[in-house]
Every structure is written in structure tokens, then in C-alpha cells.
């Protein structure tokens, strides 16, 4: 908690002029974009792909152990569950990334 990137003041705005800090921030941003890209690919797959574009062929299959046609299940149940999971996965990934790059928020007293 006591360590800060050079040029920044504890609890204040990080510097955007120090090239070292800026390079760190850019790496942080690239990692964030990669996470977002992967998670949005899953988001697209469970809703638009399985729930809409491929719903018809998937309906030929039952979700194992239930009476759900698979495409219908994705469209009316499964995609929503996956959406919830995606957000919580992102929260975990980003909390870790924030700490790794020391851009996490200091505890507010």
C-alpha cells in the first residue's frame, strides 16, 4: 500500500507526464482491453450465437437431464446466467490487475 509509481502522490491523481508511469498505464490498459475482448466474445457467443443464430440447430439437442431444447435454454435462461458470471469474473480480474499495476484505490477513511 505504501509503494506508489514514481511521480504520483498517495491518493491523488497519478501523473500522466512521467514516461515511465505512462508506459505502465498503457500496459495496464492493454491487459484490460484483452480481458474485455475475451469476455465480450463469450457474451456474444452465448446470446447472439447459441441463443439466436444457432438456436434452430441447437434445439435438436436437449440440455442433459432436463426438458430444455438447448437453443431455447440459451435464449431464455443460460445466457442470463452466463452474463452474471462474466461480470463477477471481470471484477476479480480487474481487482487483481489494479493491485498488480498499483492503480487500485486507497482505502477511503
Amino acid at each position, binding site marked *: 500500500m505504501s509503494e506508489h509509481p514514481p511521480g504520483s502522490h498517495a491518493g491523488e491523481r497519478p501523473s500522466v507526464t512521467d514516461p515511465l508511469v505512462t508506459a505502465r498505464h498503457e500496459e495496464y490498459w492493454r491487459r484490460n482491453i484483452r480481458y474485455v475482448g475475451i469476455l465480450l466474445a463469450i457474451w456474444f457467443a452465448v446470446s447472439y450465437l447459441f441463443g439466436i443464430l444457432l438456436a434452430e440447430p441447437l434445439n435438436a439437442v436437449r440440455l442433459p437431464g432436463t426438458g*430444455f431444447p438447448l*437453443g431455447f435454454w440459451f435464449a431464455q435462461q443460460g445466457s442470463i446466467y452466463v452474463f452474471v458470471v462474466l461480470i463477477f469474473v471481470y471484477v476479480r480480474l480487474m481487482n487483481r490487475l489494479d493491485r498488480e499495476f*498499483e492503480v487500485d484505490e486507497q482505502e477511503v477513511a
Partner: protein
Amino acid sequence: MNVQAWTFLCVAASFALYIGIAIWSRASTTKDFYVAGAGVSPLANGMATAADWMSAASFISMAGLISFMGYDGSVYLMGWTGGYVLLALLLAPYLRKYGAYTVPDFVGDRYYSQLARVVAVICAIFVSFTYVAGQMRGVGIVFGRFLEVDINTGVYIGMAIVFFYAVLGGMKGITYTQVAQYCVLIFAYMVPAIFLSLLITGNPVPQLGLGGVDQASGMALLERLNGLHQELGFAAYTSGTKSTLDVFFITAALMVGTAGLPHVIIRFYTVPRVRDARISVGWALIFIALLYTTAPAVAVFARTNLIGAVSDTPYSDVPEWFTNWEATGLLAFDDLNGDGRVQFTGPASPVPNELTVDRDIMVLANPEIAGLPDWVVGLVAAGGLAAALSTAAGLLLVVSSAISHDLLKRTLMPRITEKGELLAARISAAVAVVIAGYFGMNPPGFVAQVVAFAFGLAASSFFPVIILGIFSRRTTREGAILGMVSGVTLTAAYIVWFTLMHPELNNADHWWLGISPEGIGTVGMLLNFAITTTVSRFTPEPPSHVQVLVELIRIPRGAGSAHEISA
């Protein structure tokens, strides 16, 4: 105690609760009024967001709509939940870091332009007003049906309640009443659903009951319903009739519209930190998903019950609820072939259909159809009111802050004092309540289309410019303004053309590429993206302080509480 007394008791008790909370959580500063002092816990904010989001339409109409649309109803289920993923990953944390009070605030500062701010204010007010009129109407209808008062009297009562806690408490009062309203509405929704699921499938969890076995026939419930549909000449329940392309575009417009609706976005300004904003979206979606995964189950239970109870039944033997709802005009039977039996058939059947059912009945009549105790009916009424009031309050706050903060403080009267601004916020909230009430009593004849309009408008205006404002430093003022204006113009023109000017042409044969007016917001959004990025490339890059601002938005550290960044 009869149904009427139970309903009165449930509604009165819930209203007393809301008023108590409003008195306890009065706003004393503009920061309290606009963003609840930015001190709301992520979990409480998640509940408040869920109540804010789920309107009378979600509570009363959605399950019935799905019940009649079958698979096609998926557009609402995916469309109104998937937008939260976009909010969590692309919008909420960055807007929280920026720490503005309103959406036009961000647009105006990021695009260093008063014109952009004013365009955003107009969009925000228009989107919110179209939406709020429907809520006030919903309040009136619930009062009318359950307490047998005049719809207008119902609207007056609703106005008085919202007036009390929105004007007095601002966002702070709204937030904590919304938490209570969520609890009321979800309880009221789940109780009948669990009863129904037990009755039909023997499984107390409706989400599992939907995929379970129908106890009466021993077949999988969905298979049985598909079979019934085939017999009666309806399209298979699990397949639907809309074109795949249209389903795709409508879903996208609703998702992106959700993520662009100002009353949803500002909820994430109320939490203390960036990381709270992220997780708060997650909580919100859990609370929303609870209702949204139950709705399709309720839809199937209600459909199966309805067909089972009435199809080919002699009119003299129909259950009591049938005649009760017939009296309200929401259910109508016309014995075309004069055989004294109810023929409920679809377009593919040789036998003409004799039964018309208003889709709202599916949720409202559920307790009666399933033979549930009277107090459940009272609970459903209180739940419907909670859903309508909580959404109305959130929307009214957007209108009031757009006027007092964006228009007065940031545009016309920058020298206005804190006290003056707070007073202006209260007055504009009060005026907004009155206007909303007026539209509730005299609804424009096109409320349903207007809701599609609100989503299309939010999708084609705010979403692209906010995303690009965060993710592309190079996006310029000229790009954003032209992008917003062209996206909104295309969307508005398409919707107005088909729903207001030429309703007779509003069918798949005349739509452009088979895209319905509900789905056109997606095209408007793509156009906005294309124009904003292209124009940005050919216009001078944003001033350096704006580029620094974008850098700072991307890093969580140093957020502090919501405040105005002097750009």
C-alpha cells in the same frame, strides 16, 4: 378478510414504508440530491438499480408477452439483461472515475463543447419523459384494477408519493426507497411463481420447473406445450416466428439501449469507488436475473394452465376466474361456431379462434388461476406499484438534474449558488412529476412504440459517444456531435415513418432488410459509430487537457467521491 382488504393493507403498508424512508434520508446538498452523496454500498446500489430498471412493463407485462411470443420473447430476456455486461465492462467504472453528476455532464466535458452538452440534455430529457409516462399509467392501472378507484385518482396518488420522496430526498431518498421497493416487488413476483411451479411440475424452483416434467401428463413440460401448440395450430412455443435477423437486431438494440439509458447509468455514480461500480453492476444483474429467469417459467406455466383450463371446455364449465376477467373486458369469448365450447386456436388451425386474451392478465390473474390465497393477490398489487414507482422516481431524477445541473449550472447560470441549485433541482423535479402525471392521465396513443423509441434513441445517441470517449482518445467534438445527431435522426425517422405516419406499412415486407422499428436502434448505433470515428479522423485532435482527462479516466486510482472535474 377479502381480496380488497388484503390489497388495501399491502399497498398502504408499503407506501408507509416508502414515506418513512423518505423522511429518514432527506437530501441536504446537491451531491446528496444528484448522487446520494456517492456513499451508497455496492450491494444496496445493486438492489436500487434492479428496482430502478424493472418497471411496470417488466413486472406486469413481460411474462404475458413471452407467454404469447414463445421463443420470440427471448429478445426481451437477453436484451434487457445483456446490456449490464456492457455497462460493467465498458461504461460504469470509467464514468464513476470521471465522477460527474449526470450523463450530459460527461458528454459536455469530454467533448469540450456546450453544443454536445445541450444535444445530450435534449436526448436525456426526451428518453426519460417517454419512459416515465408509461410508468404513471402503470400506477393508475394497478390502482384501477385492484382497488377499484378511477385510473386518474390512481395517478394522483402515485404522483403524491413520488413527489414526496423524489423532491424531498433526491437521489438519496430514491435510492433507499428503491431498495425497499425491490424487496417488495421480488417477493410479490416469486411467491406466485413458486406456487405455480410446485403445482405444475412439483419443483419449487421455477427456473428448474420450466425444464422439468409436467405432472399431469408425465411429459417434459416444454414438449407438452409444443404438442398442445401444434394441435391447436400455433407455432411451436420453443421456435418462434420472427426472422433470425430481426431477433438479432432487436436484441442488440435493447442491450445497447439499456447500457445507454441515463437513469441506469447515473446509478453507478452513487457508489464510493471505481471497484464498487464494477461489482455493483454484478449485484444489479443478479437481482434482475432473479426476476428475468423466473418470467419465462411463469410464461410457460400460465400458457399451459390457460390452454388446459379453457381449450375445448364447454362455456358453462369454465372456471370462476374466467368469468371474473371476462367482466373486465380483458378476456373475451365469442362463440363463432355456436357449439357452446371455447375454441382457442392459432393461425394454422382450420377452426377459427374464439378467445381473445389481454397479455397483462397472465401475471395479474395468476394467483386466481392457481387458486392461491387472497393475500397473494394483494401482494402482487403492491409489487406492481413498487415496480412502477421506483422506475418513475429514477427517471424523474434524470429530468430534474438535466435541467438544474446541466442546463442551469453548467450552461446558463454558472454562478448559481449551491443552495440555489438545490432549490432549482427540487423545483424541476416537482414540475417533472406534474408533467409525468399529465401524460399518465392523458397518454399519447402510441405508448408502446414510444418505449421502443426510448431504447432506440439511447442506443443510437449516448452509447457510441460514451464508449468512444473512453476508449479512443482521438475522438473529437465534431465527430461526437455529428455522430449523435445522425444516429438519432436515422432511428427517429425510421420509427416515426413506420409507427406514426404509415402504420399500415409496418410489416416485414416493407421494412429495410426485414429490420423492424424495434431493432433499428442497432443500425442507428452502427451509423453513429461509423460517423463519429470517420469525422474524428479528419478534424483537429482534442485539446491536450481532454486527452489527459481520458488517461485519468482509465486508471481507478484517485477517484475520490463524485465531484466536478474542472476541465
